[in-house]
């Protein structure tokens, strides 16, 4: 338990750093190697932030296994896509899921969901998508992510975040425990050469 709490603190600082500086890629710490479980980083995230006061939704295959494990470790409640505070999405159909997630209200924009997208690998190669906004010094680039449709994502992102302060915040996690955060204040634009 105490080991978990120390790890949670370290990982929270990494996450906070990535959310406040959206151009950076962080690596979550892990007290043990769990090579058999590709979703280990996902559980670290859940353990870090979830508790009985919040709700979550898991999409894709293995969703019921993942959900029950999250409930056991955190006692958070399972919810629908539309009302969950935290969504755990894998690469399939994410636009559909993201469009249905809650964006908060003008009076309470913090009620907008946080979407955690689990992908295979966040590379350190820049894509052609430019990032600007709070937390980014001048500009930065969205990293290339294998098998991830950035064009569709940038469109969905712009759509759900068009009525700032309402919106959704995103965290990408890969199987190597790397994380990359995009808060709703970021502008994602295709760089035209």
């Amino acid at each position, binding site marked *: 338990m*105490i*080991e978990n*709490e*120390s790890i*949670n*603190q*370290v990982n*929270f*600082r990494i*996450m*906070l750093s990535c*959310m*406040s*500086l959206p151009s950076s890629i962080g690596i979550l710490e892990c007290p043990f190697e769990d090579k058999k479980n590709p979703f280990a980083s996902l559980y670290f995230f859940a353990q*870090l*932030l*979830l*508790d*009985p*006061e*919040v709700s979550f939704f898991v999409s894709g295959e293995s969703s019921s296994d993942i959900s029950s494990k999250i409930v056991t470790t955190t006692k958070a409640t399972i919810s629908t896509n539309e009302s969950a505070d935290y969504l755990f999405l894998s690469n399939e159909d994410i636009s559909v899921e993201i469009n249905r997630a809650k964006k908060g*209200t*003008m*009076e309470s*924009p*913090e009620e*907008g969901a*946080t979407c955690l997208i689990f992908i295979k690998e966040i590379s350190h190669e820049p894509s052609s998508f430019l990032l600007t906004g*709070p*937390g*980014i*010094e001048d500009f930065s680039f969205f990293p290339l992510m294998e098998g991830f449709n950035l064009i569709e994502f940038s469109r969905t992102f712009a759509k759900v975040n068009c009525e*700032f*302060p309402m*919106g959704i*915040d995103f965290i990408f996690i890969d199987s190597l425990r790397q994380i990359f955060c995009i*808060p*709703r*204040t970021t502008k994602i634009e295709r760089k035209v050469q």
Partner: protein
Amino acid sequence: MNGKEWLMDQQNNKKPFFYNFAYLDENTKKEIRRKILKAVAIPGYQVPFASREMPIGRGWGTGGLQLTLSIIGCADTLKVIDQGSDDSVNAINIKKFIQKVCDIPITNDTKEATVIQTRHRIPEERLEKNQILVFQVPIPEILKIIEPSDQVTKRMHAEADYSGIWLYLYEDIIHFNEISIGAGYPVMVNHRYIMDPSPIPRFDIPKMNHNRSLLLFGAGREKRIYAIPPFTDVEPIEFEDFKFRTEDFSGKKCSKCNATDVYLDEIIDDESGARSYQCSDTSYCEKRCQL
């Protein structure tokens, strides 16, 4: 010592009431951490949080303290200042408490600290990307100067209806040819929210614009957390023909280190009635004196 060692030490000493590492229990920290992340995603917006009572009084920094305790860990070095000084009553009490509940190195050196908790000042030395500045905030709602009801001010922020505060400044100018707000001057964050920067002097406001560090604000009694990420636009609200003005120290310098481009405390020499000035940022002054 790390968290595990901390707990073993508490149990071995058979203390009847022992505390979790950094005092707050894990669920309290989680709630605050969730809210911090949302605050960072919506710069300048006040996120409500549950807010625990702490062993120091409400109004004495419980908000800033809860933020510090939720983020701090063994790899951190902490600095706590009040009115710019490491040795002020409030700063000392807070450091005493934090050292009692977790074993973190404390420093007076702004450059060495990874987390700085402050009451009413931003340090003179530039902060960097790996640092976090935690502000103690007595009254987080800047619109209280025109409207006492939280219900109404919440709607004003939702609609970005800030006409009331512009009018307040305008009326000051008409009556006194001067804006009356001294410290805690309203700022516009990321071109969307007007925010109370806490009672820091106007002198410190320009430091907030595109600061390289993360700025976190905690109001424990009012139960609000807000944040400004690094590299964010922060502008004091001003009229085209009546510009924002910082405090005037022209012709004055610190009597200890001779600095002229810092915020100065006015000292009254009660024997002769003469005035002298000293750096408000005492650790910066000491550094300069040692050079």
